């Protein structure tokens, strides 16, 4: 775990169910609501919710279950998403725009174009990814509040 520069003044974890398309996005919606209630600047909220949503959808599509933890300090927003799933073989490849292993079902829903991980990185000030094939993936997203 990285040092955030200050102890979180807010921290909350949410479970994400793999394969649950009806509730996909509910966790990111809660993240957005919390950030709005805490009067985080709009641009940081948008970046955080887009990153959280992309990460949440990845858990829904590819993992059995996952957890999103939102930590907030006076300076930073941190979103850690861990999952138990198939993992990613070749992270460098997965980080390239357009690379995708998505099924036809995922593509029909409007996703799976190989934009998810690059878009998470684009919306982060710091982004770390670690994955073990057959076990799961950890994403660590940090966004400056201002």
């Amino acid at each position, binding site marked *: 775990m990285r040092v955030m520069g200050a102890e979180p003044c807010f921290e909350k974890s949410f479970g994400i169910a793999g394969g649950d398309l009806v509730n996909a996005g509910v966790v990111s919606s809660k993240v957005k609501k919390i950030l709005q209630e805490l009067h985080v600047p709009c641009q940081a909220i948008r970046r955080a*919710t887009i990153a959280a949503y992309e990460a949440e959808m990845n858990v829904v599509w590819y993992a059995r279950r996952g957890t999103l933890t939102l930590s907030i300090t006076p300076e930073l927003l941190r979103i850690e998403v861990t999952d138990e799933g198939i993992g990613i073989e070749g992270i460098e490849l997965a980080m390239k725009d357009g690379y995708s292993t998505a099924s036809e079902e995922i593509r029909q829903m409007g996703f799976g174009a190989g*934009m998810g991980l690059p878009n998470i990185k684009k919306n982060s000030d710091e982004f770390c990814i670690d994955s073990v094939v057959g076990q799961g993936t950890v994403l660590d997203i940090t966004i400056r509040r201002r």
Partner: protein
Amino acid sequence: MTLEEIKKILDAQVIITPQDPQMEIKMACGCDLMSDVLAFIKEEALLLTGLTNLQVVRTAEMANIKALVFVRGKKPDRETIALARAKKIPLLVTDLPMYEACGRLYRHGLPGCSEA
């Protein structure tokens, strides 16, 4: 351009009316790929799409999309409408295909996200 003007230009049916009938739209994006929408759309844009699933509304929520237009006469299901209503995202449906719907709005002066 107001949403009311957009409705007229697209001969659209309104499924969820905006809280402000004079809601102003400054730019638009036509796309069926939510991955692209999340990556490229600007805040407060109008999204025209042929997809009508729940994730379109979720995408609109996360990216601060101001309103949704479903093209090719595609009607969203009850769950999608309920979610959009809860998130206060106006919904319109036009029978026009994507190219023509976008073309009409562009011809009337509504710019794309890369121009606005």
